Structure formats: structure tokens, C-alpha cells
């Protein structure tokens, strides 16, 4: 339906239009508390249209895709009537062919319901242990996306996504322990990846059974790839062109400045093979490319979509992200830490096992913490950089070894200050959602106990 929609919009909107059409089918099997409980399927399709008319931009979305496109165009024009003037130019066709990135994997698309159930059962069997309860969910999705605009740019691609998640619960009296992990990728997970998931949960569970008192004071703290969220979130928020435009990004005036440890590099990479966020072009018809955000501690650039770029008088970096409802916004694809070289496709498809909890960073620590999960990440004034979170899952490190799990402790600090000097990067880089990062050791993180 996208071609007639864009054509109709061209006739009625004097400043052009762009549209996204997306359809997906998802199959999910869920094991609750150790037993297979449900199987579900979802079919969904929808369209999102943006028009520019009399210098003003409007947006409309619908899942009633069988309806005549007139209605959607009419709603987008009504939205434009209220909109503010914006000098938004829809990009023309790219000069070169769209980059090639494999987003569709037949093995994932063709996996049967029984295959999904089989993966779940195998995981359950390997995670079962005395006194614990296990939840497992397996999810497979196939998507088809088409984008087009009135300037002649556009493209389409199919994608697959496969997600496996498991959590193990152990309740002893009033002590509730939950250890979980998930892997997601575009392809069917390999046996090695599933084994890594099991090993990751079991290793953290084994160390968690013994409770020890938390340390206190300004101490070395290792954040696992998952635990790193509290330190990454302020940085990624501050690197969004939207925050810069609003004047609330602490990094807004820092392009070219050395603000982080010289060993920290960050890139956004939509071309990683095997990742669900990868795509050949963004949701606003711009070809995908890898964007270096921070190189050796120096801020390089921010991410933009068309509108944010137009307002900031710069170019879109190809980060337009849109759903069926609402307008496009700048969004990251795959955030990759410390791998700024050529795209290595093999790594992209991998779900690395933690070689060893802490990524080899624990040896030098006399007394400190290993933080795997914090409570309340994302609350409050995130972009400011200051954080203070109780631990959900953390371990005490004494004389280079994990001695047990700590409860009733909180860690606090300022993300920007901590990233200025990193005491070490681990050798355990892995995907956590769409972020590739290792464990990271910081000195002098404030730890309080209660």
C-alpha cells in the first residue's frame, strides 16, 4: 500500500511526504515456573505517513491498513495545519546502492513451533536446580518494512528476530534472588550461544547463594556488560541530537573535546550482521552507515533524524526511527564499545559467553564490588550524569575473588566523572540487548550500605 499512499500524498501535500509500512508476525512460547504454559502468535501491519504542506509538517498513523489511503492523508494534512513551519527536505535517491546487510535468516524464519518448544525445554532442563523456579520465553519474529518518499528515495527489506530469555528464581524466607539473561539476534541461536546463556546464569547463581556483608566507602567497582547500563544511559542520552538541540546535553558543546578516558570509543552500527536493529536504510529513507560517536575519548558527533537535523541546521546521520504512531525520532541501532575498526560480521552474530565473571578485572581488587544489576536505572535526572542506585544483583570482591552476594547496598557517582578515567576494560565483551560492551572497572565508586 505504500506506493499509492505516497502518490496520493504527493498530489495533496505541496512540500512532499514520506511513509513507512511495516508488517510483522511473531510466535512466542512461554514456560512459566518450569512448565510450558502458552503459545501465541501475532500478526500486525500498519502505516505511518508524514506530509509537508505550506511549510508545515504533519504525521498520522493507522493499523486499519485496509482502509482507503485518503483518510490517512487527510489526517496527516490536518496534523500539518497545526504544525510549526519546518524546512524539512526529503532526501532523494542515494548516489550509490544501499549497503548490503543480511537481516533475514531462513533458519529463524522457518523454525517451527516445535523447534521453539524444543529450545525452551532444553534450556529448562539445563537450568533446573533444587529450590529454584525457572521461567523461559522463546520468541521468533519476521518483519517486512518498506519506506518511500516523494523525492524518489526508498527501499524495502525483510528481517528476522529470535529472542531467548530465562530467569531463575530462588526464594528463601524473605530473600528473593532472581538471576536472568537473554539473548537476541536475527538468526536461530547456536548451541554455543544457548550454552553461554546457561553458563552465564549458572555462574552468577552459584556465586549468589552465599550472602556476605557489603563493603563501604569509595572503592573499585566492576560493572558487568549488563550492569553497565547506569553508566551508559547518560552518555547515550547526551549524544542524541535531540538532547543537544534542547540544550540539556552536557556534551552539547564538546565535539572535538577529550571528555572521556582515551581508551573509550563508541559507535552506532546499523550494519552488524545478525543483529535485530540492523537495517540497510533508516525509517526516513537514508542509507545506513556506521557512525563514530566517541573516538579515543573525544566526542565526534551526535545522532540525528531529518527533523532534528533540520532544526539544528545539520545533516541527518541516518538515525530516523519511527513506529506506526507518532513521528520519527532519532534512535540508536547497535551501540558498539571499543571496536571502531571495520565491521566484523562474525562478531556481529555472536553471543559471547562471559569467559569469566568480571572479564578478568577482579584480580587486582583488594575490596570492592561486582555490579550486575541495579534498581531504578533510568529514573530521575539521567542526563545530568549523577546516579544513586541500590543493587539488585552484586557481589563482593575480596583479594581478587568473588566472596558472595551483597544485599542492602547502593552505589553512587557521576557517569561523566567516572568515564574520565577507566581503570580497566574486561575481556568479556558481549551483546546486552543492542549494546556491545565488556565489563568495565572504575576506581572510587561510592558504595553505601544500609
Amino acid at each position, binding site marked *: 500500500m505504500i506506493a499509492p499512499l505516497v502518490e496520493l500524498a504527493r498530489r495533496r501535500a505541496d512540500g512532499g511526504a514520506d511513509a513507512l509500512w511495516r508488517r510483522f508476525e511473531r510466535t512466542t512460547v512461554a514456560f512459566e515456573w518450569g512448565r510450558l504454559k502458552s503459545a501465541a502468535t501475532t500478526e500486525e501491519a500498519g502505516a505511518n505517513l508524514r506530509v509537508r504542506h505550506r511549510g508545515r509538517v504533519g504525521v498520522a498513523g493507522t493499523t486499519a491498513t485496509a482502509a482507503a489511503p485518503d483518510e490517512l492523508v487527510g489526517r496527516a494534512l490536518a496534523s500539518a495545519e497545526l504544525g510549526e513551519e519546518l524546512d524539512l527536505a526529503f532526501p532523494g535517491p542515494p548516489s550509490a546502492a544501499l549497503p548490503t546487510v543480511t537481516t533475514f535468516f531462513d533458519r529463524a524464519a522457518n523454525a517451527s513451533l516445535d523447534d521453539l518448544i524444543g529450545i525452551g525445554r532444553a534450556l529448562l532442563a539445563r537450568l533446573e536446580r533444587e529450590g529454584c523456579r525457572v521461567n523461559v520465553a522463546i520468541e521468533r519474529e519476521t518483519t517486512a518494512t518498506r519506506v518511500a518518499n516523494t523525492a524518489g528515495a526508498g527501499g524495502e527489506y525483510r528481517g528476522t528476530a529470535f529472542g531467548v530469555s530465562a530467569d531463575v528464581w530462588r526464594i528463601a524466607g524473605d530473600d528473593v534472588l532472581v538471576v536472568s539473561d537473554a539473548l537476541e539476534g536475527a538468526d536461530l541461536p547456536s548451541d554455543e550461544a544457548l550454552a553461554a546463556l546457561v553458563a552465564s546464569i549458572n555462574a552468577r547463581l552459584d556465586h549468589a547463594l552465599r550472602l556476605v556483608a557489603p563493603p563501604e566507602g569509595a572503592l573499585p567497582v566492576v560493572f558487568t556488560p549488563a550492569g553497565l547500563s547506569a553508566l551508559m544511559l547518560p552518555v547515550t542520552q547526551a549524544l542524541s541530537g535531540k538532547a543537544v538541540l534542547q540544550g540539556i546535553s552536557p556534551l552539547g558543546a564538546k565535539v572535538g573535546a577529550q571528555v572521556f578516558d582515551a581508551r573509550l570509543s563508541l559507535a552506532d552500527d546499523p550494519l552488524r550482521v545478525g543483529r535485530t536493529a540492523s537495517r540497510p536504510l533508516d525509517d526516513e529513507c537514508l542509507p545506513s552507515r556506521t557512525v563514530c560517536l566517541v573516538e579515543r575519548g573525544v566526542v565526534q558527533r551526535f545522532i540525528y533524524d531529518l527533523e532534528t537535523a533540520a532544526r539544528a541546521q545539520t545533516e541527518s546521520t541516518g538515525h530516523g526511527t519511527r513506529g506506526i504512531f507518532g513521528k520519527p525520532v532519532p534512535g540508536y541501532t547497535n551501540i558498539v564499545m571499543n571496536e571502531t575498526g571495520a565491521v566484523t560480521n562474525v562478531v556481529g552474530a555472536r553471543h559471547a559467553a562471559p569467559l569469566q565473571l568480571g572479564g578478568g578485572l577482579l584480580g587486582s581488587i583488594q575490596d570492592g564490588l561486582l555490579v550486575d544489576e541495579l*534498581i531504578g536505572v533510568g529514573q530521575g535526572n539521567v542526563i545530568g550524569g549523577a546516579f544513586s542506585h541500590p543493587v539488585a544483583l552484586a557481589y563482593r570482591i575480596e583479594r581478587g575473588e568473588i566472596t558472595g552476594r551483597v544485599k542492602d547496598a547502593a552505589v553512587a557517582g557521576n557517569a561523566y566523572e567516572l568515564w574520565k578515567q577507566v581503570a580497566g576494560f574486561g575481556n568479556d565483551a558481549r551483546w546486552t540487548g543492542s549494546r556491545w560492551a565488556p565489563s568495565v572497572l572504575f576506581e572510587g565508586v561510592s558504595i553505601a550500605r544500609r
Partner: protein
Amino acid sequence: MIDRLTAALARSRADYTEIRVERTWSTAVTFRGRRLDSATASEDQGGFVRALHAGGGWGVASFTSLDRLPAMVARAGDLSRAVPVEPPIRLADVSPHQADALLDLDGDVRGVPIAEKKRLLEAYNGAMLAVSDRIVDTLALYRDEVSEYWYVNSQGTILHELRPEITLSGTAVARRDGTIEKGLESIGLRRGWTSVQDKTAGFREVAERAVELLDAPMVKGGTYPVVLDPELAGVFIHEAFGHLSEADFVYENPQAREMMTLGRRFGKPVLNVGDNGAAPGLRGTLPFDDEGTPTQDTTLIKDGILVGRLHSRETAAAMGERPTGNARATSFRHAPIVRMTNTYIAGAPGGGSFEDLIGDVKLGVYACGAFGGQTMLENFSFTAAYGRMIRDGRVAELVKDVVLAGSLFQTLDRIDHIAADFRWNQMGGGCGKAGQYPLPVTEGAPHVRIEEALVGGEVGGA
């Protein structure tokens, strides 16, 4: 539509089948600073089928193309047969209901031009911006919807509802040099256009506070007597206790069941907690849940003792208890799961006023409003919007970065004084669980005092 649904139901070969169809018209307006960010109207529609064969698990199908309804009924049945479950899933009895419920639209938003919605939001946004030139940014959101809802199941329940919802929120960002502070106003109701007029004062107030916070010191981390305002107390009871009272957490988990044994003491006799899906006009209110069970007021904690929990038909059957009308789904995209509605700490009759709570506090913290809250089972963390120190029985200086953290069991047990000044917090936002967000809920509470709680701020002070 009902005929179409009952016809599809009649063709199902499953032992139990339910079908839900929703058609939602919504408009949304957003301002950032002085600039209109977007004004859009959307239409969302789709269906949901859930089927159960004897000895099978749930077979579920959701879809946006209603032409697919017969195929999806068959597919849900197939999926149920494909997942054998032992012991079998049972559903507690609920007598069939036929109802055509038109909730009070209170000014049908569908009859209001979007330009007028823009003007209303512009006025509230402008009130925030006008407070001071220290207000460097605002984010103001308006959203309304009317959802037409149909539900049928193979046990004879047939429901048709028209459900309104309206939410407004404003964030004011104050900045001076490197210091950034926020104020947040939020309104959410299961009503219409009329209910959101004349709300300027609230927006102005949060912007004023954001500016004031620029000069406020960070609270000094430590253990204090803490008084929660009704808003934060409501968020606390929802996050820290409410989720544990959802029976899907305990019904198949013996250890969790033990932790949540009815009769266990959770607090002092002054503590009374419940969930009321039938309270009029609130966001969490509906006549029936998404399994066709009538909503009700369920007491969870009575005089400090755990006496109840929230159920779906499945969890009620598994635990030999009665369904409470708490099986809810955020939309046709999801299966109903056990959720809260309007969760509250009851005001203590004779509990007195806020002044009575702080009168004997020498040094304490008055924690107000909520920027967010998260619970990891027995551990929670809440970020208050702002706080004030309590000194010698009086409210003293403004403080910022008030983060409350602790263990649920300890903290509930340390609630020693509850005032009589109960109120519902009619806020927007919503509750998230199992990938379903945002579910409209409301919380309510009076002022509540915790004799001792950990307040993070400058944690460690190292």
C-alpha cells in the same frame, strides 16, 4: 460486531474461547519549549483470541486485520493443542454477563477539534515557561482516546463498552550553569474533555519548584524518619507491595506462596491496603476486567495482616480463591495478566493531619511526589520529585535528590503513623509488567510516616 464475534466463537472447537476486539481513536499533542512538537490523530484497531483445550495450554492469537478473525480463532485452538500442560489449566467460575456499558465520556473528546486541544496544552505549557527565564525547556503532552471494546467468551459473556481516557503531563526543566532540575505535573482520568479544564495552577507550581530546586542542597544521605506525601505513598504501595499481591507471582511458586501466606503480618495495625477497580472515574476503573469478571474492591492488608490478593480466573482456580477482576491487558496485542487497578493505602480514621505526623519528628525528611520507582521484589528504590527537611516538628528547607531505598518487608513494618487525609492521585503514566505498558492505573493514599528509612542522596559521602 457482536454477531460477527459470536459467529466466530461458534466455530471454535476449543473447550474455552474468548475474543476481544478494540477500535481506538486517539489524538496526541506535544510541546517542547515554545514549539509545537506534533499534533496527531491515530486509529488503532485489532483483535485478540485466546483458546483453551482440555489438557492444553493457552493458545493465543492477536491481529490487526479483522478479516483474519475466523483464521485466528482456528489458529489459537491449534496452538492450545500444541502445548500440553500438566496439571491442566482450570478457570474459576464467573457467572456470564451481558452488558452494554457506556462510561461517562464527560465531554466526548472526539467532538473537540485538535486545534482546541493544542490551545489548551499551549496554555498549560505557557504557564510553565512564564514562571522564570530559568525554565530553559519544557515538555508538555496531551493525549486522549476513546476505545470501543467488544468482548465475548464461550461461556456466554458478551460485553460492549466505550472507554474514554485522557492524560496531560508537563515537565519543566530549570537550569543555571551546570545545574539542571525538573518539575513534573501529571493528570490522568478515565473521563473526557471537561475534566481537564482549569488545571493551570498545577503546571505553574511544578515549574516554580524546579526553579527553587536550583538553590536547594542535596539531601544528606542517611537514615531518617520519613513522611511520604500521598502521591509518593501511593506510588510506594503500588510498586513495593502491589506487585507482590498479584497472584501470578505466587500461584505456582511454593516459596513465593509461603512468603505471601495469607495471615502473615505485614505491618502495624494502622496499615490497611486494597485495590479497587470499581472506584468511579479513575484511570484504573472499568466495569469488567479483560476476562469478563466484574471489578471490585479487594482488601489486601487489613489491620497489618495480609488477607487477600489479586486474581485472574486461572490464578484464582489454582489457589482455590475467588477471581477479583484483575485480569487486564494493555490492548488487543496482549493476553490479560494479573494487574492492579486503583491501589490504595486507606486513610486511618482518627489518624489526624500531616501536622500530627511530623509533630514529634526532631530531624526527618518529608518526601514528596515521584519521579519514578522500581521494585526488584523485596527491594525498592523511589526517586521523590523533591523533599523538605523536617526539623523540630516543622517543615524546613527544600532538599533535592531524595532517593528512598529499602526492603519492602522492613519498610512496611516501619509505617507507624497514617493520617486521615486520603486522596487519589489522578496521574498519567502507567504501570508496566511483562512487556505490557502503559496500563492505566491509579494510586491513592494519605500522608504516611515511616519511622526509619534509608534516604540516598550523597550516598556514602566518601
